């Protein structure tokens, strides 16, 4: 058996909330990194990929569990890893040379040796001639080359990368990826293992020897498998597309649902208040949902999500929330990576705007607990307004602060579109929508007349 370099044993991560709740971001997870592998960690955004990476590097301590570096607790070990960041994380006030030299300086290396090594690595990544330039004079691709040079100059045993190509345009990213692969395969760099975090499925299949897919709420490993494709890998090959398709299926499979609750004779569901849990609202705009549904209709009402993404030139992170939202509202069903439009979905896609709003309103109130609660709360109050804070506190028990804010933002967005309610941003209060108010007034007037 190979010696593992880094081994995580039942690591967990909690973040403390302002309201003294703790939100679990990573549920107990085992993971190890062995020599000779490129590992890709895939998952939707917010699933805890970066959090896991930071625990594996020793940058942040796990809330429970332990990370070992060559079987020694990582906090007290002489860890030799590097990170390439999505935002490059270069020091803008240092030249390219000084940026790359800084880690060597931190290790107390002699100036002459430092210089030699820095120049050599700049040469390797194709940056000779740029030593005296400042990062802001460089293009994005060149900047990330500096990021790579800085990471490689210390000859790390494990090279970590957190979405290193996400901020680059497609061609630049492709170019850098293949150069990195070449360095790795020709063993130009003494790095033992590479750990790549990405949300780009093709990128993972293109580079990795092993792929780990992370699910969310809280983050957990969905699958972990080896990729046996030969390098160089051909994006058009059947084996390649099959693998990509498989990962799409894993990512779009709805999480296990709780069993159906008993039904009352009226057909309305009885809900146990204690079991009430907010669904995670996908952060999609109503306009985006309509657009997707129209596209599915164009594809004869049913198609591979993979192909839809391709058609839209969307990355999985852009498309998934929209698919999730359409599914949540009952406009779309997803099975085995295929999206099929429902009857209401088709009607929604074909209607004009007022009818669309009506359909959306019905779907939202039926399917989204948070929206239903907001509407009820407004109705229950005599002044027809409810502070946002009230829902913030309830969501806070279930989501991280950041996510809570995003959930509210999406709910406000949907509610305004569906004219379920309005939101007064300066007072941070939900108020009854003008339209609803009119309808109610008309109704009560009619009653008085009668």
């Amino acid at each position, binding site marked *: 058996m190979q010696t593992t370099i880094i081994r995580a044993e039942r690591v967990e991560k909690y973040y403390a909330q302002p309201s003294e709740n703790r939100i679990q971001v990573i549920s107990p997870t085992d993971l190890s990194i062995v020599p000779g592998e490129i590992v890709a960690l895939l998952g939707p955004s917010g699933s805890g990929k970066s959090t896991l990476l930071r625990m594996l*590097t020793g940058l942040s301590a796990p809330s429970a569990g332990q990370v070992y570096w060559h079987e020694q607790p990582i906090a007290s070990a002489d860890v030799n890893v590097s990170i390439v960041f999505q935002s490059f994380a270069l*020091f803008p006030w240092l030249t390219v040379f000084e940026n790359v030299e800084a880690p060597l300086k*931190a290790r*107390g290396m002699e100036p002459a040796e430092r210089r030699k090594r820095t120049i050599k690595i700049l040469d390797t990544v194709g940056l000779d001639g740029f030593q005296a330039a400042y990062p802001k004079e460089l293009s994005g691709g060149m900047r990330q080359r500096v990021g790579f040079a800085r990471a490689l100059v210390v000859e790390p045993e494990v090279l970590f990368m957190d979405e290193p190509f996400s901020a680059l345009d497609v061609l630049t990213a492709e170019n850098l990826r293949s150069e990195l692969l070449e360095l790795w395969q020709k063993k130009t760099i003494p790095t033992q293992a590479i750990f790549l975090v990405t949300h780009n499925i093709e990128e993972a299949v293109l580079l990795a020897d092993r792929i780990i897919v992370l699910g969310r709420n809280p983050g957990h490993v969905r699958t972990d498998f080896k990729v046996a494709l030969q390098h160089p890998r051909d994006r058009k090959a059947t084996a390649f597309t099959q693998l990509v398709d498989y990962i799409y299926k894993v990512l779009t499979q709805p999480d296990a649902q709780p069993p159906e609750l008993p039904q009352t004779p009226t057909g309305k569901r009885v809900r146990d208040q204690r079991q009430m849990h907010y669904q995670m609202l996908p952060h999609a705009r109503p306009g985006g949902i309509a657009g997707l549904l129209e596209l599915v209709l164009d594809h004869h009402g049913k198609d591979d999500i993979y192909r839809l993404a391709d058609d839209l030139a969307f990355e999985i992170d852009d498309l998934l929330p929209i698919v999730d939202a359409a599914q949540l509202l009952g406009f779309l069903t997803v099975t085995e990576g295929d999206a099929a439009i429902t009857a209401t979905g088709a009607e929604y896609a074909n209607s004009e705007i007022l009818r669309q709003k009506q359909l959306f309103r019905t779907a939202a109130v039926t399917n989204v607990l948070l929206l239903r609660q907001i509407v009820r709360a407004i109705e229950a109050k005599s002044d027809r307004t409810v502070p946002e804070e009230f829902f913030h506190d309830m969501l806070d028990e279930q989501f991280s602060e950041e996510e809570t804010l995003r959930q509210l933002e999406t709910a406000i967005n949907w509610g305004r579109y569906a004219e379920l309610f309005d939101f007064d941003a*300066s007072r941070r209060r939900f108020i009854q929508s003008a339209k609803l108010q009119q309808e109610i007034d008309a109704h009560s007037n009619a009653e008085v007349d009668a």
Partner: protein
Amino acid sequence: MIQLPDSFSYIRGRETLARAQVLKRSWPFMLDLCVAAIGLACFYGVVVIAKYWFGHSEPEIVISQSPRALPLYAFYSVVRIGLAYLLSLVFAVGYGYLAAYNKRLEALMIAGLDILQSIPVLSFLPGVMLAMVALFPTRQIGVEMGAILLIFTGQVWNMAFSFYSSIKSIPRELSEAANIYRFSRLQRLVQLELPYAAIGLVWNSMVSVAGGWFFLMACEMFVLGPRDFRLPGLGSYLQTAAGTGNGVAIAWGLLAMVSIIVATDQFIWRPIIAWSDKFKFEQVESKARIKSPLLHLVQNSTALRSLGRLTTAPLSETLYRRYAQERQQRLAQSSSGSTSRPGSPWLRVLISVLAVVVVSYAAFHALGLLREVRFAQFKEILKGALATFLRVNVSLLLAAAWTIPAGVAIGFHPRLARIAQPIAQIAASVPATALFPVILLALIRVGGGLGIGSIALMMLGTQWYILFNVIAGAMAIPSDLREVATLFRFTTVQRWKTVILPGIFPFLITGMVTASGGAWNASIIAEYFRLKNQTLQTVGLGAQISAATDSGQFQILLLATMVMALMVVTINRLVWRPLYRLAGTRYKLEG
């Protein structure tokens, strides 16, 4: 990176090229010569200062009114400001650093900053002076130190806060890069924290130094009961000149003041701003940059560079190596299981207990002082507080009344801005306290009392904050918004209500907050002034503070200062902060 077009180098023959070479080679020599001259000048300055500090043992300093004495006086004032500034810089960095990294002290230190920023510094003047005179062997040095300490307390807090908030806002990935690449504390400070904080520190330094002039002018010459403290400097020169009604001397003094401020701007701030440009945390290179020949000189001097190579470089190499070794040792130790912690918990407990005891002892005695205040005096103080409150707000309103239309006009008309802005900047940079005696003299001539005069004096120092902010706000209103107003033929009232006022609102609030703080502080000088051996005063909190200072009634001084600090803090919390929040949410114009 400048590349000349090919034809350009072709036209230039070989001989001109050779001449250019000579010039190129001789330039560094010239630069070195300049640097050497500056070095010599600095040395001479130190000698002069030392001579004055240790030579003057005679208690009575006579302030000459001859213009020939002015250069030396100006030099003394500049040195005072400079020393106080350096002290502030070091302290601010230390304070901000500690607050940012010590979780236990953070909340306390930041609350402290908030309060210290709102306390009227001038009310400390007497206490500080007396303490310093008692502490130092010769009285002159004591007064000198007192002045420096006072300027320091006036300028340090905003810098400390700026450094603290810069550290706190360092992007997460940048900080993680420093961690993963094992930066030591020193390397972190030099390569991450200081550069990241540099721009904020530079701008706050400019504000601080301007504030420093304000205080210096006030404390170079002041009276405490029977004692008369004076320091040779620009402030005392102006006050003496105003006291004797010497118009020529006043004109010379003001001229010196303005030239110092223009020179500081040209020879210190411009090079520093140009240099700090490289610390901008932006991803694209900005087009418009401030250039400075002086910076060019310093950066291209071979002498300075080799000086650096000989001194700082070996030092930093040694330090970095030491830190790296220490880290290795620490790791070896912790992996072998021995966990010896430096600094026993007992010591820490002892220090905390000691600090608590000392603080409570002093606080208890200060409160004991308050028992001596009689009820009638307390009522007087409250009455004064009300008067000063009204005066501060009237001055704010008056200032806003003329600066809003003027600022909007300047902001909307680039051609007007080109003429008006430099003039306003120079006018604004003359410390109001330097003009106080002059304006008072004029007021007395026309027969106005200090009641109205003090409002004018408060405005003098604070209106500029509002003006500059309004100009910035008007410039920030997108031109398409203005065009819409024109397109739909908005009436003037409509334009102001829907476009201009909401657009400048956040800026206006920022200006008013600063101006309000400044006006409270100015009240201490503005409501009570000694001129030509007579004391002018009016009812007010500031006047009570100054009067208590003059007569040595420390209990009243303490109470009045507390009342003023309390009022400033309360107004900030109840009025300005909510307005600020409103400005940040509803009236934010996002580009």
